[in-house]
């Protein structure tokens, strides 16, 4: 009698444990985003599942580091960056003249009777351009999409940077107390943010291939 009870208790315990284990090992339903296809059993596992992320981040860091190392060379700075920055100062000066600021330009300097700015590295949009370039190069996309993305991206980043230089000049001229924080925190954030958002827009809309047409 006791033996039979023990046997039934063992069977019941095993049943409860099996049910518990089965419940615990139920896979969570995967989240399906964007135009992803449903996952299949052929999908890579382990680190291979993150291979594309690893490749993207590695290429991004290498291009970014290489680009900025190149910028730190005096020859590149003197022959490329300084003339480029002078060009930005010229366009900014013309824009400021158009809104009645009556400025004088001298190289990378812009000044009028109220205020003067010297556009240096960090304020010419080149950093954001290189971050954008590194992200475009690192992202898996067709060559044509990359070229178009780079061309439009660089123009858009420089447009935002032009707004920054003009806005900073006006801030310095009319609200000098706000110039410092506006220069370092506010506009740096806006320019980098716009570059990153631009890249995400490009990657999301143009770099990814269109979903294949399906016959119903």
């Amino acid at each position, binding site marked *: 009698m006791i033996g039979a009870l023990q046997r039934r208790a063992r069977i019941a315990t095993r049943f409860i444990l099996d049910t518990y284990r089965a419940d615990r090992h139920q896979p969570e339903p995967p989240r399906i985003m*964007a135009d992803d296809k449903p996952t299949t059993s052929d999908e890579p596992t382990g680190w291979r599942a993150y291979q594309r992320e690893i490749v993207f981040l590695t290429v991004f860091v290498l291009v970014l580091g290489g680009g900025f190392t190149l910028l730190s060379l005096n020859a590149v700075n003197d022959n490329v960056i300084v003339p480029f920055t002078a060009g930005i100062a010229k366009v900014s000066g013309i824009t400021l003249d158009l809104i009645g600021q009556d400025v004088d330009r001298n190289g990378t300097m812009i000044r009028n009777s109220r205020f003067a700015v010297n556009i240096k590295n960090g304020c010419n949009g080149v950093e954001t351009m290189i971050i954008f370039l590194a992200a475009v190069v690192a992202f898996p996309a067709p060559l044509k999409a990359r070229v178009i993305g780079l061309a439009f991206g660089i123009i858009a980043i420089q447009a935002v940077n032009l707004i920054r230089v003009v806005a900073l000049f006006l801030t310095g001229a009319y609200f000098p107390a706000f110039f410092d924080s506006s220069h370092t925190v506010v506009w740096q954030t806006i320019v980098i943010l716009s570059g990153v958002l631009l890249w995400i827009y490009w990657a999301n*809309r143009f770099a990814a291939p269109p979903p294949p047409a399906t016959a119903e």
Partner: protein
Amino acid sequence: MSKKKSRPARRDKRGPKTAPPPRIDRREWFTRFARGVALWLFPVAAVWLLITPSYNFILTESAESLVRLTENPSATNLGFEPEHHFLITRSDLPASRGALSSVRVTDIHFPLIMLGAFFLAVPAIPWRIRLENLGWALLAAVFFHIVLAFFWVKFTYATQLDSWSAQHYSVFAQNFWGLGKHLLDLPFKFSLPFLLWAFFYLREILPPRSTDTA
């Protein structure tokens, strides 16, 4: 009986048995993300402004401890100043020399605003996961800020003190600390929020794998 039916759908080799969760269109995803970034930017900036004095202090103390770990005897003092600066002084240099350099600490960590906005704005991700990822990203960012402050101090010692720098640092060391500070302070400081975001969320915008479309 009802318990068995309420279990999540199993997958087998023939694909999902039940309808997949609703998908988000790519255009809609970006619109929601951009709107989220714009909306989150101001609350995150407000929080950043609130925590900045405490964080400046923590960062200065941590950087000083890290620099002192590399010195024997310890001589570096990072004096915290108003207006969010720390002053670098050395106890083995004459007091008449004063502060060797001044670094604005907020310049080191203001990209936290971008980081917070990026991580909180990602659409279609449960809040628990968003906050968990943000927590890890903040932890990584704090380590980066301490290392950047460390490089600022070493850069000052190696390149900004004329004969003292030449006497204590080789040409290679001067280039190492100079280039290191340049790379950390410009490209990596600015791109860190994006790098961390990409680490956690790149999958959201990556095109489908080629095996899926085949």
